[in-house]
């Protein structure tokens, strides 16, 4: 009966991507940057299991001509995979990697990397490095619109994967290291017209502006360079924000510097602020809160709650109530954490004064790269585990009181590693409610590592490592199941999808898209 009903639906309507379809992702498809609105990056696919993962083989590789650093999570829909790179987009046949169409935004300026695309209706969306939102017909790559939402002349640039909610395409900007004023904007899916904009640094006289000591909002930073999550029932968008500017010297911006290093909960329809939680008030360590805000519902201390969790760059794993923004719990998820004596009962860090960077240099743990960063974590509600790539490292941070001038490369000075204490990466599984470590998978390192994870109902977690391998580990134990050396450094998080009854796993490397599946003798 169900099949008969499906056959009656005209193909064009059947194929339209709706918010409801995105709410079902990731099932066979991967319809948004995080795979799902909740940013759990947990797939319902179960063909690949701990028992058969060792028979994974490469199915196809697609070379992105001229690419130096692919950072995108692809979108997969209706047999096509959408891969974005700086100012360009490819649609590939997801079964075999054959190019179906290609779009280059002629005249786009800027060379920033691109982290992915969004899909809604009949369009796919991506941003160019100079802050234009581009909409393309998903079947043909035909241009629907190309609309500027921030000016490169004002110093703005972007690399973000947009987030498509039913009523808008949400975008953000970079600028934490160069002194622009961050914002999240919702643009109309059909025209690109701006529907609302939330400034992450309040204007003069607005609530929160008193936390800047008169520092100009236009230079405040608090960028919005990673993709937020969304609760369609509450119609709340959860967007993480980056550091205040200048990164390492806070003397000219006394106060908490709202809404830098926050997660802001915004009404999806109006963009109005519902609540905010600031992880690192008055940040002088460049600890953007741009790690994914992951949404889940669970019983917490005897009460069923809608939660938001985040493994923050400052070294703490946080559990918040996502309806109210109430701080519930936090726990360090790295050993190398020395900048506080703990958090108070509101989650505010008790900062050690000697950890404020000085002109002579101050050793601080975690490092500027952070205990984790924008590499995507994932969460499996069956194991109850939160899988996150972590970095154990400290840095020497040097601060300077020099007059800040935006877009000059000035960041209040900077950081350097400690040669005798190289960082080490681990893929860790945390109990999602307590933050307790259940297992860890050490990376060979020290190396380059910006790849995150995808977990699956089959009980396998995929991650990159810092030696260029895509690895599969057992979701329950962290036991090594399989690996493949891509020969490249990894800057993107893997995804998984199914076409024609076969489960695939894909990761973008520096210049290629690698796709794997179980061996089958055909």
């Amino acid at each position: 009966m169900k099949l008969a009903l499906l056959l009656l639906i005209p193909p064009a309507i059947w194929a339209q991507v709706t918010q409801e379809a995105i709410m079902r992702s990731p099932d066979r498809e991967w319809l948004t940057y995080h795979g799902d609105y909740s940013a759990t990056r947990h797939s319902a696919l179960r063909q690949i299991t701990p028992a058969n993962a060792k028979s994974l083989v490469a199915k196809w590789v697609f070379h992105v001509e001229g690419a130096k650093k692919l950072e995108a999570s692809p979108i997969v829909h209706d047999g096509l995979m959408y891969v974005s790179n700086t100012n360009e987009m490819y649609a590939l046949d997801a079964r075999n990697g054959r190019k179906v169409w290609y779009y280059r935004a002629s005249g786009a300026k800027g060379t920033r990397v691109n982290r992915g695309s969004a899909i809604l209706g009949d369009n796919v969306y991506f941003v160019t490095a100079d802050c234009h939102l581009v909409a393309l017909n998903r079947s043909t790559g035909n241009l629907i619109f190309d609309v500027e939402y921030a000016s490169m002349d004002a110093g703005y640039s972007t690399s973000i994967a947009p987030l498509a909610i039913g009523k808008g395409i949400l975008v953000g900007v970079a600028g934490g290291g160069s002194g622009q004023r961050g914002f999240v904007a919702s643009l109309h899916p059909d025209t690109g017209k701006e529907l609302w904009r939330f400034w992450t640094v309040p204007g003069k006289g607005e609530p929160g502006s008193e936390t800047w000591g008169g520092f100009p909002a236009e230079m405040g930073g608090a960028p919005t360079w990673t993709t937020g999550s969304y609760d369609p029932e509450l119609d709340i968008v959860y967007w993480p924000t980056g550091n205040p500017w200048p990164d390492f010297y806070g003397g000219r911006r006394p106060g908490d510097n709202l809404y830098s290093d926050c997660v802001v909960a915004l009404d999806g329809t109006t963009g109005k602020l519902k609540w905010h939680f600031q992880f690192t008030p008055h940040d002088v360590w460049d600890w953007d809160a741009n790690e994914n805000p992951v949404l889940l519902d669970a019983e917490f201390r005897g009460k069923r709650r809608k939660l938001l969790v985040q493994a923050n760059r400052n070294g703490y794993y946080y559990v918040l109530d996502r309806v109210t923004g109430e701080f519930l719990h936090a726990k360090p998820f790295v050993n190398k954490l020395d900048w506080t004596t703990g958090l108070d009962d509101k989650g505010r860090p008790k900062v050690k004064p000697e950890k404020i960077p000085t002109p002579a240099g101050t050793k601080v743990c975690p490092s500027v790269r952070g205990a984790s960063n924008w590499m995507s974590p994932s969460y499996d509600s069956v194991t109850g585990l939160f899988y996150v790539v972590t970095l154990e490292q400290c840095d020497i941070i040097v601060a300077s009181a020099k007059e800040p001038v935006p877009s000059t490369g000035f960041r209040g000075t900077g950081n350097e590693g400690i040669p005798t204490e190289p960082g080490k990466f681990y893929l860790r599984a945390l109990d999602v409610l307590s933050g307790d470590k259940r297992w860890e998978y050490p990376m060979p390192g020290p190396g380059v590592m910006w790849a995150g994870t995808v977990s699956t109902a089959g009980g396998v977690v995929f991650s990159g490592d810092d030696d260029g391998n895509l690895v599969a580990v057992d979701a329950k134990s962290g036991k090594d199941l399989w690996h493949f050396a891509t020969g490249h450094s990894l800057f993107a998080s893997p995804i998984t999808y199914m076409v024609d009854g076969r489960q695939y796993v894909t990761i973008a490397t520096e210049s290629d898209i690698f796709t794997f599946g179980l061996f089958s003798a055909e």
Partner: protein
Amino acid sequence: MRLLLMLACALHAQRELIPRDAASVDAGKQIYMGSCSGCHGATGEGSQGPSLLSGRASRLPDRTLLGSIKNGLPGTSMPDFPMGDTKVAQVAAYVRSLTSPAIATTVAGDDMKGRELFFGAGRCSSCHMIMGKGGHPGPDLSNIAADRTVPQLRESIAKPSARITDGFRGVSVTLAGGKTVHGVAKNHNNYSLQVLDHEGKLHLINRAQVVNLEWKEQSLMPAIGNAADAQNLIAFLARQAARGKLGGAQ
């Protein structure tokens, strides 16, 4: 302030060393056909002399291009053409027009009439789209003036089959079971075939399913015979750049 203005004027003047207007390009073409085409080909494709469409000769700075025409290149077979700076600039204007995106050039013709033709009697929009308006499966023309030169537009309109862009070759595919798909092949190899049909639907096909494959030798696009129509159409298409003149001219 005055210094800034002077600087702006100087920059403007520098940009205008080689004119872009249609009259200069046409005048330059007349001279070029008489004096240059013997070695560089009628449209700069090169013969005894190098191509002006690609390689070093296509990337010369304005002053170097003007100097090369006026003074020749000693030690090579490129002679000097001491015909006065205006004519030298006109020749340079024509040479530049051979490689400039259409949006960066001034084109003769009535673009409004071209628009009417495109969306009306010419039925171009039954196969092509501009900013989401039009049909399938022809190339999207939303940004065509940023991606193509005027000579390329002219060739596509006058001789559509001279060069069929990758991904737009016509094909009819008969599948096991008897179903036939007509459209353009977005890609193909010995194992798979990706066809976009006239309704804009993609067919991702395994070659094992294919019973018969018939490639179209001719472009699916008819030639525009009427010279005035063709010129008006070129004038219209030469305005189609999603980011306007600045973006397109980059």
